[in-house]
């Protein structure tokens, strides 16, 4: 059986707690926010690399985003990914999940020969979790979401994905090719491998594709290809809380709590 080829979809996100709203423009203000690889995508990469450790094969990274994503994604190279494919073009900008999944799907077609696409559970910015199923649909591939473990049967070209469901666990089986999303925190992402650390700086391990490099319809990408539009933006109101301290001895605090609970419950 030929080795399997895995692509991990990764995105770079601002640290959520550092993002605000610029009320003069009504746009998101990310100026003071530091970026990082979307943490759940590290779990997807780790799962891909652990499959490669067992079965061999190849793991690549696919991302759609502005050029500044590149240095962040390069960490993946030192963890063991072969190559980064970055879909980067102003025309891809402003995409909602319909346009994002369409563009990523064309990227996967363009890479070619992919057996398994792994995604994170959700991003820490948009946090829709809609990209994995949407991507599977554009590709007409099977999907399993929120898995914490994958067992690959290379000969039969099948995977078993284990996932927690309300009240228990289930194992779903599907044939490859497939799109799988990986449960956040389901594994411990490995550190950079010092022996291949210099790969981070290697020029020729990153491929950047623009609109004209992959076969996309102009009407289906970026803002133009996005049915949803943002009509308003606001900082979430934080509720005023009383912040009343119960003080005294432990016994007094307990009596205070009992009185409070009798009133509230």
């Amino acid at each position: 059986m030929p080795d399997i080829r895995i692509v991990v979809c990764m995105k770079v996100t601002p640290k959520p707690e550092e993002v605000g709203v610029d009320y003069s423009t009504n746009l998101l203000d990310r100026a003071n926010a530091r970026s990082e690889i979307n943490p759940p995508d590290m779990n997807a990469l780790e799962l891909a690399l652990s499959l490669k450790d067992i079965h061999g094969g190849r793991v690549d990274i696919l991302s759609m985003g502005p050029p500044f994503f590149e240095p962040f994604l390069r960490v993946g190279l030192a963890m063991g990914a072969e190559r980064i494919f970055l879909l980067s073009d102003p025309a891809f900008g402003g995409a909602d999940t319909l346009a994002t999944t369409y563009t990523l799907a064309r990227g996967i077609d363009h890479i070619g020969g992919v057996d398994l696409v792994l995604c994170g559970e959700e991003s820490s910015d948009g946090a829709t979790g809609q990209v994995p199923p949407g991507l599977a649909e554009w590709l007409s591939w099977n999907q399993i979401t929120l898995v914490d473990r994958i067992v690959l049967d290379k000969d039969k070209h099948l995977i078993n994905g284990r996932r927690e469901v309300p009240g228990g666990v289930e194992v779903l089986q599907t044939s490859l090719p497939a799109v799988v999303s990986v449960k956040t925190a389901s594994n411990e992402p490995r550190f950079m491998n010092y022996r291949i650390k210099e790969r981070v700086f290697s020029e020729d391990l990153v491929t950047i594709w623009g609109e004209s490099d992959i076969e996309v319809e102009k009407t289906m990408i970026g803002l133009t290809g996005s049915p949803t539009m943002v009509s308003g933006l606001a900082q979430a109101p934080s509720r005023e809380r009383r912040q009343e301290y119960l003080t005294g001895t432990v016994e007094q605090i307990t009596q205070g709590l009992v009185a409070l609970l009798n009133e509230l419950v």
Partner: protein
Amino acid sequence: MVASLYSKESEKKDICIFLEHRGAGLAPVSLELLSKGRELASHAGWTLTGLLLGYQVAGAASEAFDYGADRVILIDNPKLELFTVDAYTHVAYQIIDVYRPGIFLLGATMDGRDLAGRLAVRLRTGLNADCTGLQLDVEEGRLVCEVSGFGGGILALIEMEKHRPQMATVRPGVFLPSKMSAVKSGQLIRPEIEIPDEIIRTRVVERVIGEGVDLTQAPVLVAGGRGVEGNFEMLNDLAQLLDGDYGATRPPVDDGFVERERQIGQTGVVCRPNLVIVCGISGAFHFVVGIQEAETIIAINSDRDAPIFEYADYCIVGDVHEIIPLLIKALREDRVAERPA
């Protein structure tokens, strides 16, 4: 721009709700969506339809009428007994193509999200995720969705101009279920839809399901963090005395002290209890989004400077291992004293 399967011009003034069933009845999130859908539909003069897929689930249709549906479209088929995204997308797509609702709403559950993400692409329409509020602009027939991003810190309003149906998912617990006051009946429609075997490409090879936990329905929650040091039995005792349930932050879940279903927060469940007692939890942003809509928050933490106190109505600086056992004892004594002889 890519056109959706049908346009605004050919939509029906109808709100369609994807109904999930649990045991004999409908899932709480479906009742919540029906109630919200009823409110929007009545206000705008639209109709409300439930879409019910499954096997031997006809009984659940009457419950949909109780919660305001004008009609229920039921597809009862053994191939729909277990949820598979392939079969459900296939059927939902065909129904939507025929009935052309202006709006299609789903619960943001595991199955609801799987289906919504796939179906929206097949319909070539937009999908608003995890909405925390819905409004219907009657003039324009436009659904205005409030969503939150960046871990709950930012609210955005999202709408669609031309694409139909306007799809959205809503997390459990966001809307309140409300049963119709008068007995209401509705129309039950049972279209025939063929489900070829070969379209179902995933197979359940193993499933172990015990009793599910649903923290979104608990009126009182006792939440424990790393500071509880794994003693969730103590928290459960307290929760039982208050007719509530217990939950946790991520660390105790990762450490195996608590099931993952009990994790509260951004990557867990978002709860809106009347009361939450937060024990040994620092108050990380990722956690707080899961409880910030609670009516009242009581926090117990040994660190006077813990951020959780900024989010609390009542603050107690102290050791949970000392206070909670005393509290349990006092509540028990209180109950005994109250019990009529």
